[in-house]
């Protein structure tokens, strides 16, 4: 190992650099210069994103290390004695998460510039980036230790984000619920990991499969471990914190939580299930089968009668997690590609929706579905963005959500999960109902006292435009999925 290998850690290192710069800026920047915190943060994340997106191959070529580059391109390349795994798909997912984070940052302005949060705005960006770093570690982990550290790094700061509006008791309540449940879940997960360690004698991902025998203890260990990630993904029955936290947390945080955190967890879950628990495939497929059904159905049933938009989207995102799991359960290349693609599309759709919710909440203070009545007559553009997002979430063409849903279904069907897909498909009908409820209130319902028209700020608009473009183009431009699929071969 020589230091040139650090170039392989470019995602994490550049993120750490960003964090450090921002930290220093936050500490030493003058009060006036801090007004530019958001643009600077966005810019830095953008730079980081460029680095992340820049394929490892190209980066390596600069340093003249082509043999390794080929190896990386071919599949997983272990670094730091196998503690850290370098693989192209991981980089793709990381850049997806970074894009999402960037959009969240763009949309956070309205909230952060409020009088109570303005002095703490730097913290938001910093803490968010810390959690992002944690997710990077989770994704890159080749050992349960790094995985665990990444998981905790991604969830403990998140609690502070949830409780960020410290003068709102709902925010505090949500924070408490989040942190306590998170610790409990990670406790269970740790207990599972400890048992795995006990039965296999190793924590390295590459060594574990050979030592798995499928004994009852190992299965129990697996289930306990699974709980930790299922909690983050908010799969039923580990989902109950989700609506409360989503509702209570500041909207930007909810957006982040519902998309980035969930996306990372889904990807990592699939990687670990496939790479580490491969020998237990029958067990985890059976578990996922029922968990998916429960997740989609229960979440949909709850979503049916929600009034609060954020709570509504909480349930929606639970059920979306169920659909994401369809990719996981297949365990195939198609499944992996579809999952990543789904996360990408889901991210754009959900962020668009939360962008609208956020700006409306901060401009008018309204956040129930009925408040949205007649929104189209006053804020047509926001309504259209919202509608696109909802249609994409519901899986209506030509929006990207249609394609992503199609692919996860295809992945599951390829493995023979006809009944599962059937149930999921029926659930899409229910989900369409509640998504249409929102569309209905915006477009069809009349309202004398509709939310007054307003002009949103440039950052938010940029974010919304980016999301809309993503929703519209991701499906029609097959190259995105093609690339993801290409790098998913053999994961």
């Amino acid at each position, binding site marked *: 190992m020589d230091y040139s290998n650090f170039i392989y850690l470019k995602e994490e290192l550049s993120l750490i650099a960003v964090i450090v710069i921002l930290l220093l800026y936050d500490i030493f920047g003058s009060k006036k210069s801090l007004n530019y915190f958001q643009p600077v943060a966005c810019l830095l994340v953008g730079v980081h994103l460029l680095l992340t997106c820049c394929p490892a191959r190209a980066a390596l070529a600069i340093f003249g290390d082509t043999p390794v580059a080929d190896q990386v391109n071919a599949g997983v390349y272990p670094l730091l004695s196998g503690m850290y795994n370098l693989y192209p798909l991981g980089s793709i997912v990381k850049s997806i998460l970074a894009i999402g984070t960037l959009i969240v940052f763009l949309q956070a302005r309205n909230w952060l510039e409020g009088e109570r949060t303005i002095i703490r705005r730097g913290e938001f960006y910093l803490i968010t980036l810390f959690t992002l770093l944690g997710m990077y570690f989770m994704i890159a982990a080749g050992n349960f230790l790094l995985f665990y550290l990444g998981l905790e790094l991604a969830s403990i700061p998140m609690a502070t984000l949830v409780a960020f509006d410290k003068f709102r008791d709902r925010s505090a309540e949500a924070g*408490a619920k989040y942190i*306590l449940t998170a610790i409990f879940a990670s406790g*269970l997960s740790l207990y599972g990991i400890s048992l795995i360690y006990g039965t296999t004698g190793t924590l390295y991902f590459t060594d574990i499969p050979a030592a798995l025998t499928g004994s009852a203890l190992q*299965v129990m260990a697996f289930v*306990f471990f699974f709980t930790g990630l299922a909690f983050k993904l908010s799969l039923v029955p580990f989902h*109950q914190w989700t609506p409360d936290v989503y509702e209570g947390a500041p909207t930007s945080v909810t957006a982040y939580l519902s998309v980035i955190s969930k996306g990372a967890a889904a990807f990592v879950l699939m990687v670990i299930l496939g790479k580490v628990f491969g020998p237990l495939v029958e067990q985890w497929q*059976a578990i996922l089968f029922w968990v998916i059904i429960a997740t989609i159905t*229960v979440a949909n*049933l709850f979503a049916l009668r929600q009034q609060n938009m954020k709570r509504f989207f909480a349930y929606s995102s639970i059920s979306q997690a169920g659909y994401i799991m369809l990719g996981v359960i297949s365990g195939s290349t198609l499944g992996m590609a579809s999952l990543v693609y789904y996360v990408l599309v889901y991210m754009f759709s959900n962020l668009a929706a939360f962008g609208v919710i956020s700006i409306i909440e901060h401009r008018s203070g309204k956040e129930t579905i009925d408040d949205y009545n007649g929104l189209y007559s006053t804020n047509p553009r926001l309504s259209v963005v919202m509608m696109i997002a909802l249609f994409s979430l519901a899986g209506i063409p030509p929006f990207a959500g249609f394609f992503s849903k199609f692919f996860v279904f295809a992945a599951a069907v390829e493995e023979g999960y006809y009944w599962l897909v059937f149930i999921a498909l029926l659930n899409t009908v*229910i989900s369409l109902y509640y998504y249409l409820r929102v569309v209905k209130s915006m477009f069809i319902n009349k309202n004398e006292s509709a939310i007054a028209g307003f002009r949103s700020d440039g950052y938010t608009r940029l974010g919304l435009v980016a999301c809309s473009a993503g929703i519209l183009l991701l499906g029609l431009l097959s190259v995105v999925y093609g690339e993801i699929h290409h790098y998913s071969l053999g994961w």
Partner: protein
Amino acid sequence: MEYTLLIVLLPLLSFLFLGLAGKGLKPRVAGYIGTIVLAIAAGLSYITAWHYFTTAKVDGVFEKWTPLNFRWLNFTEHLHIDLGILLDPIAVMMLVVITTVSLMVHLYSLGYMHGERGFQRYYAFLSLFSFSMLGLVVATNIFQMYIFWELVGVSSYLLIGFYYTKPEAVAASKKAFIVTRFADLGFLIGILLLSFYTGTFSFERLTSGDTSLFAGAEGLSFMGCSVMSWALALIFMGGAGKSAMFPLHVWLPDAMEGPTPVSALIHAATMVVAGVYLVARLFPVYYLEAPDVLVLIAIVGAVTSLYAAIVACVQTDIKRVLAFSTISQIGFMMVGLGVSGLEGHEGLGYMASMFHLFTHAMFKALLFLGAGAIIHAVHSNEMTRMGGLWKHLPITHLTFLVACLAIAGIPPFSGFFSKDEILAATFHFNPVLGAVMSFTAGLTAFYMFRLYYRIFWNKATHHDHAPHEAPGSMTVPLIFLAAVTLVAGFIPFGKFVTSDSADYIIHLDWVVATISVAIAVIAIGLATLFYRKESSIPDRLATTFRGLHAAASQRFYLDEVYLFITKKIIFNGISRPVAWFDHHVVDGTMNGFATLSQRLSGSIRGFQSGQLQQYVMVILLGALLITVLVVFI
């Protein structure tokens, strides 16, 4: 012979022109256009008839000519609908009849419909009807016939409902269409069956006498009758609908709501005999493949004829009397066909039936047009509003009388010859049937003269202004038709139209002729006794046979039966429950799913209690449950 196409096409063009551009024309111009077109068509028909009957005879048998035939729609390689023109004796005869009567009606309407709203529309419809009817008679195949059959039905519908602001007219048109549609269903199914087993629609092939065509249906039977019997009976059902055979006749009396010239054209002379024409067209098939159906036809014809004659005796609306009389006379034609044989002398019934069709068309059109002139004069259909009109309407009176004598079967008027031959054929077939028909003929004479006396003699009613004779455009057709009625009986019909297209020498059956004339004279005498002057005999008879009289004037309650079937059974008994089922059960199920989801959603909401510790418990229990399930199952 290609010009025969013009006969059919000209009225169509006239219809299109009047229909599209009629609004911009002066009413009179539109009338002239229609009439002139029809006149040309009539001229062409006469030329065709002359041409055909002089040159088509080869070896003593009339050939079938097909001057035009093209494929209109494919079903399979050998099954296709063609449109074309088939000329044979009956077709040519029908061309003459239709164009003649139609021309008369066109002419007559110039006067009768003068000043009516929608005059142009009226002529457009008349043209449409003429086109359809002509297309029907020259059909080369049964499907073409069906096509024009439907078109005729629609034109009839449109013309009955001509006075569309009058609710009775609308109801009558609806009824006419639906009843005939129902019959057409039978026709269609019959065609389906027939074509399925024979593989052809073509009349030429079907009537060629080639029994191998029907080999496919050999030995197949359903409910005791052979498949061919079913097919042909169903086809006859179509004919029965259009020709107002019992019990499908209910629409015809109501159809009198249309303008009177229309009744003359469609509901007396031409369209209503389409059923007869249909049976005559397929006669060889009936005779060879399903003689049992022919018996059925004879019986239906006889029953209809008798029934209508009885009902006609008590009607007071003059057009209804004529309508029932039409039904009755068509019954005669059906009986003629039903009792007929195919070859040579056996074919008397067929020939007689066609002959009667011809003569009846003339004198019945005359009667209707005469009735129109009367109505035109007194503005009422009711006999009670008439009486003593002979001096006001001399021409109408005379022509009407000619027609009455013709229909009553008094020599030398045309009706005598044709009816007498039908009676002869019937007696030959079955004396009982013959007796029934003779009785009916007597009734015919009776009710016709009842009508005649009640209109022209009897007690004169007071009118606000003196009724006056119709204008020339109306009387000319009357005189023309009366003249035809006078001489038509002497046409050597057997030379032209026979069942086997060969010559048939008519010789009168003197016994039958004498009897029937005697009956007719007695009936006329009775009518004279009852109705010549105002008399109390009819009333007394009516009270004596109270039940019969009431039943007859209510047309034996058949309309009520129909009303019951449509209103009570179809509307209330089927449709309402179906709609209810759709709304509550099918729709209800779909709504039920929605409600169920909402309910379910409501019932599980307590699960999300907001309690941190419950959440954690669920997580733990979930993990344990999954473990247990996976490990132990």
